[in-house]
Structure formats: structure tokens, C-alpha cells
């Protein structure tokens, strides 16, 4: 008994130290946004000595030109919201098809599906860029190069993840629904999707986080500054300000991180624990 309490205390001790190391950079970031620029790098502490809101106020100010923080934030979600909705739709249909039905050539197609899991996106950037260039999609006002591939179930990892969960639901459910007169689409809609809700929320959240974090995509396909999403805007502000106005840059980073962390916290209670982000 005594040995157990001792090991429990030790475990909590290690857990706490680990947790502190993990979130120290984020706490430091939050503290630094309230510091004066001269003071930011003076110590490793978290709390500012003379808190100022200069960084936060400047963060919302424009650098000139057609883009500002709020516009960039809006652009990010102009990409993310349609992308998440279309991903959920296409990924669900694809996973359903692969997990539940047989058709000619299924073996080959399944192999291709799994092979794309390990096909590096970087390999595809050049030929995809040429393709989108030909299609006239570069700098499209609707962010077509970023959204259309996802709308066609381009994120194979999510398909594979969802397939595992489809397989976890006994087929007897489908058969019962069929006996009650459901066709396959109705079975999906009325029986399977409600059962898969936690996984679908995970899929949506993951796609949202990946999209908001994506930098290479917008860097290649968005050219007009007024259409820049947040990730490109942060890089711009860092290039413009590093060396002097770090509190402003860090405040912008902070504002960029907050919605993601918020979404994660809200969604967490509805998500399945095993699915937390697989892709980078």
C-alpha cells in the first residue's frame, strides 16, 4: 500500500514536470505578447514585468497593402469551412464503398488506396502545379486547387481511418436496415452515420487543423495578397518585423493558435480518443 502511494506520487511528479516542459513554450509565447520589445528576450520567465498591450494592438494594425490580420483570418476559414464539409462528404462515401461493398477491381483499388497513404505530397507539388496552371486555377478566387482535391477524398489517411471504424460496426445492422426497406444510401444516413458521429467529428477537426496549418498549399496557389490566408500572413509579418517588433509577431501567432486550440477543446469531448492526428 505504502509503496503504491509512493509510486503514485512519483508518477504525478514526473507527469507534472513533463507537462510543464510541454506547455512552457506556449505559456512563454502568451507572456511575451504582453512584453515590451526590449524586454522580450531578457529572461526565460513567463510573466512580463511591465505588461503592455502594444503587441496586441499592433497585431490588428495593417502593414499597408490589401491584407490585414482579420482579412487573413477570414480567408483561412473561407478555405477551411468548404474543405471540411466536402471532405466529410467524400471521405464518408469512399470509406463506406470500400468497407461494405464488393465490385470489380476492388482488390486493385484497395491496394492503390493504401499505396497513396505513403505517397509523399511533396512529390506531387510540381506536376500538380503544372496541372492547376493549365486549368487556370492558380490564384483562383475560390481556392480551387486547395479545395477540389479534398472534395474528391484526396486525404487518404482519413478514408483509411474511417474504414477501420466502418468495419467495427457489425454488418447485421446493415442487413436489418435492408429488411426494413432501406437502400444502401438510407442505411448509411439513418444507421451508420449516427453510429460514427464521434469519428466523423474527429475527421472534421483533423481536416480543419491541417487546413489551417497548411502553408505550402497557399504559398503555391494563392498569389493575390488580398487572398492570403493566415499561415502566409504570419510568415510575411515575421519577415517584415523580426528584429524589432517581436511582440507584434508573437501576438499574431497567438491569435492564429487560439481558434485551433479552442476548436480542439470543444470537439475533444465528442471525439474518439484513438484518432488524434496522424498526418503532419
Amino acid at each position, binding site marked *: 500500500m505504502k509503496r503504491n502511494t509512493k509510486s503514485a506520487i512519483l508518477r504525478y511528479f514526473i507527469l507534472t514536470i513533463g507537462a510543464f516542459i510541454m506547455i512552457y513554450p506556449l505559456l512563454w509565447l502568451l507572456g511575451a505578447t504582453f512584453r515590451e520589445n526590449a524586454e522580450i528576450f531578457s529572461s526565460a520567465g513567463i510573466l512580463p514585468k511591465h505588461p503592455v498591450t502594444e503587441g496586441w494592438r499592433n497585431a490588428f494594425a495593417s502593414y499597408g497593402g490589401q491584407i490585414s490580420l482579420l482579412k487573413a483570418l477570414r480567408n483561412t476559414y473561407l478555405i477551411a469551412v468548404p474543405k471540411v464539409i466536402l471532405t466529410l462528404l467524400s471521405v464518408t462515401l469512399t470509406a463506406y464503398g470500400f468497407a461494405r*461493398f464488393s465490385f470489380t477491381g476492388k482488390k486493385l483499388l484497395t491496394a492503390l488506396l493504401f499505396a497513396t497513404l505513403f505517397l509523399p505530397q*511533396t512529390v*506531387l507539388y510540381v506536376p500538380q502545379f503544372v496541372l492547376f496552371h493549365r486549368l487556370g486555377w492558380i490564384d483562383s478566387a475560390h481556392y480551387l486547387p486547395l479545395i477540389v482535391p479534398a472534395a474528391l477524398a484526396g486525404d487518404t489517411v482519413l478514408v483509411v481511418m474511417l474504414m477501420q471504424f466502418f468495419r467495427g460496426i457489425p454488418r447485421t445492422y446493415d442487413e436489418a436496415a435492408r429488411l426494413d426497406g432501406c437502400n444502401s444510401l438510407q442505411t448509411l444516413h439513418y444507421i451508420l452515420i449516427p453510429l460514427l458521429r464521434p469519428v466523423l467529428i474527429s475527421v472534421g477537426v483533423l481536416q480543419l487543423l491541417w487546413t489551417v496549418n497548411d502553408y505550402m498549399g497557399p504559398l503555391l496557389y494563392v498569389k493575390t495578397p488580398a487572398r492570403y490566408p493566415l499561415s502566409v500572413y504570419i510568415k510575411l509579418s515575421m519577415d517584415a518585423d523580426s528584429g524589432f517588433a517581436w511582440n507584434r509577431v508573437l501576438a499574431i501567432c497567438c491569435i492564429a493558435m487560439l481558434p485551433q486550440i479552442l476548436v480542439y477543446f470543444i470537439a475533444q469531448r465528442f471525439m474518439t480518443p484513438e484518432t488524434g492526428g496522424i498526418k503532419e
Partner: protein
Amino acid sequence: MKQTKNHAGFLRRNRHFLYILPWLLGFLLFRAIPMIGSLVCGFTDFHLFRGIRHTGLMNYTQIIQNSEVLRSIGLTVKFACISVPLRLCAAMLAALLLNRAVRGIRTFRTLYYLPSILGGSVAAAVLWKAMFRDGGTVNAILTALHLPAVTWLADAHASLWVIILLRVWEFGAPMLMFLAALQQIPQDLLDAAKLDGAGAVRCFFRIRLPMISAVVFYNLMLGFCAALQEFNAPFVITSGGPRGATTLFSLLLYRSAFTANEMGFACALAWILFLLTAAFSGVFLLLRRKLVYDPDEEGAA
């Protein structure tokens, strides 16, 4: 075969093919065709604004002779070989610590996962740059601990470590998968081992690790696949410097494709990266067959 005899029957049997049609379209349009296109393109001197001419193996012979490219391949492999195992070790340690139903464990799990939400984001990279810069926070900590300060971003060896540390910090995704796998291990197996006098370390290496080896290998493969194409961190934190010490392969590819517009050369580079990734995946698959315990795998992956 029967199918050809009865056309309507064939369509009927394959009607559920419609469900995967969007994926198949996307696969052909955005993956298969670009992939083949880039293979063809790699044997030309295609320039986005000039023209295209067949040049045979020239791009590839240039790559083999180009010391910058070779160095970049070496750096990328080094980056992957250090960052992925370190990241998975951190994830495993955290998963073992968190694998206990005690009070507050959910909070700890969330805190450990928090950095991973930021993933490859530019914001996280900027934060890292601020912390590791000269006279930055990390050096302030080192000084407080009476350790020598390091010029992280200007030193050829240290700069790669800055990027490695960023990726190790974000170990949440494998941690959650390890945790889920650890919780699947039947408790009586561990109890039996304990009765036989096995300690915690022995239990880990003889029971836990073999039981979850499938998940470990899956993460190794995905981890290498991601690390070999790392772009955001070196691009934002070091711009590939100092003196090319963090010019990972993706950065080189990006520059030749989108700064120099030499699409032909870039396609050849992309195929080298593809072959490199395939080689690593192949080795892991071979090792997997030897080392992994699979109670109920369907042979899908």
C-alpha cells in the same frame, strides 16, 4: 466470364462502385496523372515560361554530380533518422506514463497533446525561431542552469537540432495511438508476468512493446514519410541556412521548381524523393514481416 454475358447484371453487381467514384476521379486526376506526368517531365528541360525539350537522363546525371543535392539528401535522411525515433520514444514514454486510470489523467493527456494541435503550422515555427534565436529564451535557460549558450540558428550542427526538437515536441499523434494500443493489452497477461517476477522494464520489452509493434511500425512508416518531406520548419525558421545546413530536400525542390521555374529538374528531384521514401517504406515493410506480432490483421496495410 458471366459478367460479359449479362451487361445489365454487371452494372447491377457493380452499382456500389458509385460510392468510390469521387475518390477514383481524384486519384486519377490529382495523383496518378501528375505522377506519370512528373516521370515524363523528369526527362525533359521543361521550364514553366520557356519551352520543353527532351533531354534524356540529363537531369538525373546532373543530380548525381551535384554536391548540393547530395548533401541535401544526406541531411534529410539524417533529419528523419534522428527526429522520427526520438519523437516516437517521447510519445511512447508519455503514453506509458499516461496509461493509468488515475485522477486528472485526462488533463495531463490534453496538456501533452496541446503542442501537436499546432502541427506544421507557421505560428509554431515562428515561436520556435523566437525561442532559439541569439539571446533568446532557450539560451537564457541554459545560462540559468550554468550551461554554455549555443548559437542555435547560426551553427551548422545546432540549427538542424532546432528543427528536430520542434518535431519531437509535437509527439501527440503517435502518443494517442500508442495509448489506445496499450489499453488493448489484456490485463491478465501483465498480471501473469508480474506473478512470474517480471519487473516493469521486462514487462515493457517482453509484453507491451511486442503487443503494440504493429502500431509502432505504422507510425515509423508514416513518420519517415512525413520527415523526408519536411518543409515548413526549415523554410520559416532557418530558410535552409546557415550555409545550407538545414536545406532539406523539399526546400531544394521548392527552390528549383518555384524560384528557378526549372520544372523538369524539379520533377527529377521529386522522383528521387519518391524513390527514397519508397526505399525506406520497403525496408520497414520487410522488418515488419519479421518483427511484428499481428493477432488479427487482415493483411490490408
